[in-house]
Structure formats: structure tokens, C-alpha cells
């Protein structure tokens, strides 16, 4: 399967093309959007590319196009109304749900596009939630960074708030964080104050969801009404990305020593894999360097559904495995700090 890996960094995006022949060399091209943070990338239902970029100076933009060589900014990117008093600093995630596309943003909120990313409407039910005045930012900002959808149900992961759930397409929301360690307890609202870092669901059983939190790895069997710790074999409770190869039923995480130090435990870069739905975890290190003190950030790991696992770190290194993490190779290039990694078939999803 021809695969392209898009790596978003703080200074542009880079595209790796997987060699079709065994032993072939990976090709790298870029940067796309030099000088811009590239924080999320997706393809819409028609296969068009959608990129989220941001700048400390110029704010957030959305670009789309049929090819990587022809990406244009959209006229109406996500933007808060002035009356709300929020700033839209960055788009953290782009989530495709059929013909709709959602954008989770910093400051935390949710936008939806019904026209393939050309224009965006705020999901006011979330930003108008009664707990919103009590939301506070994590170290990476106050950001909505992972989304799951099923019909009218939406799960939205916000740091440092927790998982918010809507059963009516975003009109009303409730926190779904029972069982998860609260970091800073609110005086009144007991369903916020957790710090979710990543969220992934089982497409065959969407009520079964895994979450990497600031203080633990969790799983739910009931859509988040109750969460249970699952960290047997993990070297720490802290880490950012969590992805799943749904065909192989394999989960992958990248634990860090602690929220104090934020680097691989003992400098031993390791991806941890679970093939029993999170009951146990094993280190995958074959081909990964020792003496590595760079974190793997929240969106910086991806799978391709055919055994491929890919991640980049804050030191600008990108690694690939073609065998579900058994062995790894470092891809060419020394990039800026890696923010996001996504894997795509080179053919369009609808093609």
C-alpha cells in the first residue's frame, strides 16, 4: 500500500513517502508552509487535503487543496466572535466524520465545517457550558485536541479539563471523567479538572475508549461513564500520544518519565504496545536510540492500518516501523520540533 507520512513541525510540514520495494529509501520533501506551525492535517471525504497552520504573529489558518502542491488558505477559518472574549490561537485537531469536519482548537472550543473546510461554525454548546469559566490551561495551553464521533455523539478531549460528551450533536455537554484522577479539583464542578492527553476508540465498539491522561492510562467500556486504570507494564503514568491499529487490535503509547521531566524514562526511547486491549504493555525498542531525551508530543504518532507505526519527537527525529513496532528505523532528515504525524494512503479515500 503506497503510504505518505505527513509530519507537522513548528516550522512547516514535511512529507515522507514510503518505498514500495523492500529495502528502498524513504523520500522526504518539504517544508510545506515554511515558518508556520503545522498542527493538524487530514483528508476530507473527497480526498482533498486539509492543513491547519498557525503563527505566533498571524493566528490560525486552514488550507485545503487537491494536491500537496496546490494548497490555498480558506477565507473563513475558525474564529471566535469578539463578544466571547476568547482567542483562537491554534487548531489542534481535524476530525473527519463523513462529510463533516470538526476542528478542535486552542483556546478550547470546537468548530464544525459542512463544506469541506471552507467555512466553520462554532459549536456554542461547548463554549457556553456552565463549567467553561472554570476551565484552565495545561502546560500546552487550553486546547481541545482529540475528538471522537458516532452519529450525534461527540467526545471532546480538552486539556486540562477532561473528556466532554454530547449526545445531541453538540447542543449540550457533560463531563465523562468518573474514575480518572483529578489534578485540580473545582469547588463546584466535580466532573472537570482531569487532564486528558489522548483519546482513541474501538470502531467495532465505540463505547470502548482508551485515554492517556496526565496521571494514568485508562479504558472505558461504557462510553466514558466509568474509567479504569490499565497500566500494567508501563514505566510511568505520564505520556501524550495514544493510537490504535484497529485491524491488529494493537495500542501504542509513548510514556515519559513524569510530568516534571517529560523525557523517555532513563533516556531510553521506547514505544509501548498492548495487544490485549491495554491489560498489559510491552516496550518496543528494537532500532530506537538510547540516550534520547526528547518527548513524543500529543499528536505525533500514527498508524497506517497495515502494520505501519510512525512517530516524531521534539528533537525532530522521525521513526517508522512496518511490523507493529517490532523493529524501527529512523527516517531521513533532522526536522524542527515535531507536533503531529499522520499516515495516508497516497490514493484518495474516496478513490
Amino acid at each position, binding site marked *: 500500500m503506497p503510504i505518505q507520512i505527513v509530519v507537522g513541525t513548528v516550522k512547516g510540514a514535511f512529507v515522507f513517502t514510503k518505498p514500495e520495494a523492500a529495502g528502498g529509501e524513504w523520500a522526504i520533501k518539504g517544508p510545506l*508552509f*515554511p*515558518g*508556520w506551525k503545522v498542527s493538524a492535517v487530514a483528508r476530507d471525504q473527497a480526498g482533498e487535503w486539509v492543513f491547519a*497552520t498557525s*503563527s*505566533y*504573529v*498571524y*493566528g490560525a*489558518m486552514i*488550507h485545503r487543496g487537491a494536491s500537496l502542491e496546490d494548497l*490555498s*488558505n*480558506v*477565507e*473563513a*477559518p475558525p*474564529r*471566535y*466572535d*469578539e463578544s*466571547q472574549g*476568547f*482567542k*483562537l490561537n491554534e487548531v489542534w485537531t481535524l476530525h473527519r466524520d463523513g462529510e463533516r469536519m470538526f476542528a478542535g482548537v486552542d483556546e478550547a472550543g470546537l468548530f464544525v465545517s459542512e463544506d469541506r473546510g471552507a467555512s466553520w461554525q462554532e459549536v456554542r454548546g461547548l463554549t457556553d457550558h456552565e463549567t467553561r469559566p472554570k476551565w484552565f490551561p495545561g502546560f500546552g495551553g487550553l486546547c481541545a485536541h482529540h475528538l471522537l464521533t458516532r452519529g450525534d455523539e461527540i467526545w471532546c478531549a480538552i486539556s486540562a479539563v477532561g473528556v466532554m460528551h454530547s449526545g445531541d450533536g453538540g447542543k449540550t455537554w457533560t463531563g465523562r471523567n468518573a474514575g480518572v484522577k483529578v489534578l485540580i479539583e473545582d469547588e463546584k464542578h466535580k466532573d472537570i479538572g482531569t487532564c486528558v492527553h489522548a483519546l482513541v476508540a474501538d470502531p467495532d465498539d465505540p463505547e470502548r475508549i482508551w485515554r492517556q491522561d496526565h496521571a494514568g492510562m485508562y479504558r472505558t467500556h461504557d462510553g466514558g461513564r466509568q474509567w479504569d486504570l490499565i497500566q500494567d507494564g508501563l514505566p510511568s503514568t505520564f505520556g501524550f500520544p495514544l493510537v490504535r491499529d484497529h485491524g491488529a487490535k494493537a495500542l501504542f503509547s509513548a510514556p515519559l518519565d513524569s510530568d516534571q521531566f517529560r523525557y523517555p524514562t532513563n533516556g531510553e526511547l521506547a514505544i509501548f504496545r498492548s495487544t490485549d486491549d491495554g491489560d498489559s504493555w510491552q516496550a518496543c525498542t528494537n532500532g530506537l536510540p538510547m540516550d534520547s531525551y526528547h518527548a513524543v508530543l500529543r499528536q505525533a504518532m500514527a498508524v497506517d492500518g497495515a502494520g505501519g507505526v510512525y512517530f516524531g519527537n521534539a528533537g525532530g527525529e522521525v521513526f517508522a516501523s512496518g511490523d507493529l513496532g517490532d523493529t524501527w528505523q529512523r527516517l531521513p532528515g533532522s526536522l524542527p520540533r515535531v507536533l503531529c504525524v499522520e499516515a495516508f494512503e497516497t490514493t484518495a479515500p474516496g478513490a
Partner: protein
Amino acid sequence: MVAIRIELPAVLTVALRREHVDVQAETLAGALSAAYDACPGLAPALLDESGAFREHVLCLLETADGTLNSRWLDSLERPLVAGERIVIMQAVSGG
């Protein structure tokens, strides 16, 4: 009406895929408004949610008497003179 060019900085050129915007206007405000209409995405890049220039955006007017920073003006309704040029820059502090 005066023909005037708005020069964009390199980073913005990358995102908007153009180096400048040429408009006809009578005032600085009019030129900027015309540029926002002519270049989709320029307004949200330069203006914050309140409609003011973002904190690190500089709008300079190059005149026969020197460079005028828009922040020195009480109003952007400053009349334009033929031969002037608007330059957008990013005021990034630090090393």
C-alpha cells in the same frame, strides 16, 4: 483614488500565496479594507477578534517624508498620496 501596493512579509506570503496586494483607495483604512476584500484570509491574519491589528503585526506607510507606523496615528483615515506604499511587517521581539 490612489493606486497603492500593500507588501506582505515572507511568512504571510507563504500562507496566502501572494507577495503583495494592489488596490485603489483614498485613505490608509480604505486601502486596507480593499486589500481584505481582494485577498481572502488577509483580514483574519492581520486582525484580532476585536478588529484591531494583532499584537505583533506592524503596518507601515512609506511616505516621501519617511516611514509612518500606523500605531502612531489616531485614525487610519489618513489620506494617501501617490507614490506611497504600505508594508506589513511582523514585530517579533527576542533574539
